[in-house]
């Protein structure tokens, strides 16, 4: 009996040790396009996720943080890993071997909207989802939660700070969500408006950006949000709390957070700024209509 107890104890010790081992490995479970992304960049991304995991937020973290399910950096990591599954490259149009130097990263999930409109609503038999190269195959963007994010040249620019890069992930991840499918009326804007304006219901699917309003420094550019809890909101809430509530950040990190937070906040329509001035705004919808893994061919 005692021998069995001893064995059981040994086994439980080993199991506990293994679970502790799992806890100490914050490395993301995302897949890299190892053909196109050099190991140094893969390591940079892993280091960014690890750095995010190591951020500590104090008690003055605000309640908007519930966008990431909780109030710790581990909650943000979870939010990211549910939405980013494949990391590829955002290449230049005229040279697929070179990263686009102007972009930090781009989530290709928004391309789903056009595919959905053509295939499901217009019954176009020739409609095909966007495909992106990934390793030696292609990934089809059949829905936003495929979670394909292409890294651009600005991400790996040595001048870009780590907080900028993490903020980029937080922003891009939100484009992977589509809580409800838009209907034909929502989507008709896409056809009639080449700027890509869609109705509010349409915007919620992949949290598409809309043209900034008149009087805005970016008036007319697709660089603003009008629906709550979108990608600019996600970035704003993260960056604001890096500035205000991070207890182990340097002054440089805090200032980077403040700059990102003010910039993200400036991209919110006035009605949305009003929404966030409420200390307890309506809760975000963090679901997506379909969280199946990506289809590959």
């Amino acid at each position, binding site marked *: 009996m005692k021998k069995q*107890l001893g064995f059981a104890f040994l086994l439980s010790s080993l199991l506990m040790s293994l679970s*502790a081992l799992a806890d*100490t490995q914050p490395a993301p479970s995302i897949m890299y396009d190892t053909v196109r992304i050099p190991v140094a960049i893969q390591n940079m991304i892993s280091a960014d996720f690890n750095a995010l995991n190591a951020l500590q937020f104090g008690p003055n973290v605000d309640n908007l943080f519930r966008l990431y399910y909780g109030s710790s950096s581990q909650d943000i990591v979870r939010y990211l890993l549910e939405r980013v599954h494949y990391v590829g490259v955002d290449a230049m149009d005229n040279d697929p071997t070179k990263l686009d130097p102007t972009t930090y990263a781009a989530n290709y999930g928004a391309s789903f909207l056009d595919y959905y409109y053509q295939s499901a609503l217009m019954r176009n038999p020739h409609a095909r989802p966007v495909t992106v190269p990934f390793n030696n195959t292609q990934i089809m963007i059949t829905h936003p939660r495929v979670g394909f994010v292409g890294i651009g040249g600005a991400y790996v620019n040595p001048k870009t700070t780590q907080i900028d890069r993490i903020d980029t992930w937080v922003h891009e991840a939100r484009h992977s969500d589509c809580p409800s499918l838009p209907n034909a009326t929502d989507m008709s804007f896409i056809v009639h408006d080449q700027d890509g304006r869609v109705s509010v219901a349409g915007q919620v699917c992949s949290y598409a950006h809309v043209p900034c309003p008149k009087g805005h420094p970016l008036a007319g550019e697709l660089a603003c949000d009008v629906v709550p809890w979108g990608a600019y909101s996600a970035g704003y809430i993260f960056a604001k709390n890096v500035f205000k509530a991070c207890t182990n950040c340097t002054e440089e990190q805090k*200032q*980077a957070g403040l700059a990102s937070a003010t*910039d993200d906040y*400036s991209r919110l329509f006035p009605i949305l700024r009003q929404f966030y001035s409420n200390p307890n705004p309506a809760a975000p919808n963090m679901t997506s209509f379909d969280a199946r893994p990506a289809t590959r061919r």
Partner: protein
Amino acid sequence: MRRSQSMLVAIFIGVVIWFGLSRWEAQTKKNLRAQQTADLQSDVPLSVLPASKITLRLPSSPVKKEKNQTPINPQDLEFTLPDPETYREQVIISEKHEGAGLPPVLREFSQRMAALMEKAAQSPEFASALFNGLQECAERTENTLIQVRTICAVNALRLGEFHPSEISEKANAFRGSLAPELKQSVEAMGY
């Protein structure tokens, strides 16, 4: 006897594994911090901004100098306000490709702010002089981005927290004078 020995061995192994993992975890965290520091330090120097930018040069400092204190060099307080047109160009180039991220002109501004705020945290005299510049920046309505005005205003208010006895009175008065749009943006940053 053998059974109790095997139990002791089991406990010993468990403790050794637990201790080893704790040390490994601590080492991993330490390496992460070192990596973060290295990343930040490896940033290349800021590029020179075009001459069209507005540079805030503070008037010869009205701050009283106490004995044994080195006078503040006005150049140490200078910071360059990002040009809205450059900001717009940088965002448009990036957004054309559906990208996100902080435009370089704002990143450079935030890095200068970090250097100034670190100095200001150490010296009430420097902080007091910097406060004037930040207030001037926040109150600019012409050709100045709301993001930049917000950064200036929030940092001015932080200076009041850093050095309450010297600056909090001015900071409170400044807070009361904020224009509505700026006030909303400042409050959205938690201040």
